[in-house]
């Protein structure tokens, strides 16, 4: 088990109290009921954290962060999720931010980091393409150099939250010859640049998270390139490694388990001694024991990170188990609804207005949303098949 120092314990208490006192009730309602969060919800919460100096806490102090250790970051993420606060949207703060302060020029840092910190600039990630998913390195969206500009043509698939975004970090192909990884370049671009069109993609849950984005002669200054031409793959690898641990999101799973416990206690009171109750308790116990292992794995990896040790295939193991667990947890939550498992009020999920006295079908809809959207988790962030390939390759050589 992760042992916390006295300072870390004090920090944990402080975070817990702050979130309890400052999390807006309407946002907590959505999280507690497993409803879709909108940009405004995220921005509001992230700004509250920003005012406290806790948004981007893991960034170095010189760039406006709090210089948190990995452990502090972990404590914060746990407390944030346990309290029913929104998941921190990673595209700006956890992805492009660290890329910029590690690989960017002084001008780039000055220009972009403040907007990420203040949450006034919203980012989207443009990497995948229709024919470059698992095989990301085969991406084709091209950037042709013309004087001081790159001219982008092509398309990016699954650009989540592009409909909200001011900026995109994008991988483009600047060179067709040689190894495909070597011809990739990392750019940042303004979503208002002429020639960009966004086409919504409705997902399995019936709501709008993601898009296909098209580029037609989109002109981007060469000054928007991060690193050198051809550095894109290296930078993307650096960044995706950051994404992989956040994907475990174990705090949210612990919150889910706690919520199920409460529900089962109510069920037991309402209809005591039903064999059904015991079946559900057994299933919950099974999930809890799996979660114990996932959290232990996560904490071990964090300790290794903090000690500067390589984590190897541990990150892939974590991604696979955490997403599988997320999926089985969502099945249990949905099953608890009995016949209402069939109910799915997509408008309620989508609009997420606080309803004083939700109907059983509304209450059940959050479970349906968790289940349906949860199917994506074994696909994005490197599919679970691809993670297993990584593991096997590391072990077998």
């Amino acid at each position, binding site marked *: 088990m992760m042992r916390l120092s006295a300072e870390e314990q004090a920090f944990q208490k402080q975070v817990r109290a702050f979130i309890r006192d400052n999390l807006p009730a309407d946002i907590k309602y959505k999280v507690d009921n497993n409803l879709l969060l909108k940009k405004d919800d995220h921005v509001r919460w992230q700004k509250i954290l920003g005012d406290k100096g806790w948004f981007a806490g893991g960034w170095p102090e010189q760039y406006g962060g709090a210089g948190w250790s990995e452990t502090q970051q972990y404590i914060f993420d746990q407390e944030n999720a346990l309290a029913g606060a929104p998941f921190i949207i990673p595209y700006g703060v956890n992805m492009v931010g660290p890329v910029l302060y590690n690989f960017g020029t002084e001008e780039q840092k000055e220009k972009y980091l403040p907007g990420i910190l203040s949450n006034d600039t919203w980012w989207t990630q443009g990497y995948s393409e229709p024919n470059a998913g698992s095989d990301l390195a085969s991406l084709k969206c091209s950037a042709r150099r013309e004087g001081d500009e790159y001219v982008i043509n092509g398309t990016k698939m699954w650009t989540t939250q592009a409909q909200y975004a001011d900026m995109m970090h994008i991988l483009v192909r600047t060179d067709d010859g040689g190894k495909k990884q070597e011809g990739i370049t990392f750019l940042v671009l303004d979503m208002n640049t002429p020639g960009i069109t966004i086409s919504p993609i409705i997902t*399995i849950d019936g709501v709008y998270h993601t898009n296909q984005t098209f580029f037609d002669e989109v002109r981007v200054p060469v000054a928007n390139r991060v690193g050198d031409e051809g550095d894109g793959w290296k930078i993307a690898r650096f960044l995706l490694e950051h994404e992989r641990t956040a994907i475990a999101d174990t705090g949210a799973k612990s919150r889910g388990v706690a919520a199920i416990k409460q529900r089962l206690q109510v069920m037991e009171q309402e209809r005591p001694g039903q064999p059904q109750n015991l079946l559900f308790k057994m299933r919950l116990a099974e999930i809890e024991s799996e979660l114990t292992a996932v959290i232990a794995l996560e904490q071990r990896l964090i300790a290794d990170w903090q000690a500067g040790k390589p984590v190897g295939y541990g990150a892939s193991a974590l991604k696979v188990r955490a997403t599988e667990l997320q999926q089985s947890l969502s099945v249990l939550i949905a099953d608890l609804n009995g016949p209402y498992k*069939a109910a799915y009020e997509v408008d309620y999920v989508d609009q997420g207005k606080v309803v004083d006295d939700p109907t059983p079908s509304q209450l059940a809809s959050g479970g349906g949303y968790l289940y349906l959207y949860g199917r994506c988790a074994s696909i994005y962030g490197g599919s679970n098949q691809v993670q297993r390939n990584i593991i096997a390759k590391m072990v077998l050589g």
Partner: protein
Amino acid sequence: MSHLQEEDRLLIQEAVDKFILDNYPFEEKEKRLAELGQYGGHWGTFAELGWLMLPFAEEAGGLGGGIADVQVLLQAFGRGLIAEPFSEVVLQAGKALEFCAPESSREQLLLPLMSGEQRVVLAHGEVSADADFSAVTCIAETCAEGYRLTGSKRVVCQAGSADRYLVTAKLNNEPALFLVDAGSDNLERYEYLTIDTRYASDLQLDGVTVPAAALVATGEVVAEGVRDALLYTFAGLAAEVHGIAKNLRLMTAEYLNTREQFGTKIANFQALQHLLADMVIAEEEIASLAWLMSNVWEMEDSTERERLIRSTKARMCVAGRQLAEIAVQLHGGVGVTDELIVSHYLRRMVAIDALYGDSQQQLLWLAQQV
């Protein structure tokens, strides 16, 4: 078992295939959803083609088809994701009427349903919406006009499209079955979307009065008849699950042979071959269960029949959902889009599982027999 001539069955098969081709392009699902809401749909066609009469005895004015014949339709309905309330009206409510009503009124009660003139859905489920009658708390009392009904019915699938509800209640503590007009006073209906993008409703009956003639039957025959109608429905739905499973497997195999990543067809990755093989194994199981169900109704031993049907409901829903989840996974990102039918098949699987006792509840019933 099929009770029809081989050529009649082939005619049904051809008709339903043509119907789906002509009327049910998946791409028009939004439009159809809107139509389902107001109700219209293709019910007239269903009636013209004789489908609404298919599973009813000839003495009652039906075509005398067996489960195997109904399965011809349902398998196609699974493949085409047909949202018309066939299983709700014809199997759940129609069979409940047939099994419960006394012979003297059976034909007269079924005729408007079979002609398509009236849609009736079964309103039976309550807090725990299993097929058993024991959970029913809705109360019927005699009154001057006939009977007064009080209680609530939950997740009544496709209630919005019904002219009448077939309501289960307790009358003097005896099981009883009533036909209640959808527009009755003191009857409130709250409608919502279901996970398979259809509709269901919760009904609140606050002293709904019905004439004496609304009582279809009373006594043990109602408890057994309603249970049997639901068991009959499950047996039919095995074919719907099979239709879904088969199409998902076909689509996924085709996708693996088309999609390329890392410079090769993804069908060449053994990890995916094995997952596809798992789909095929599940499909084989489901096909076998559907086949088993096709003549389960002819069994003499009704206890054994119930055991087989509930085992089937549990297993086909677990295997079907796993199969559909693999199909989604193997399609990658496009598998989780609304645009592709694959995600909708998975959603339908969840709805079928939830219907009158999900797999866990069926297993619990089986466990309690041990």
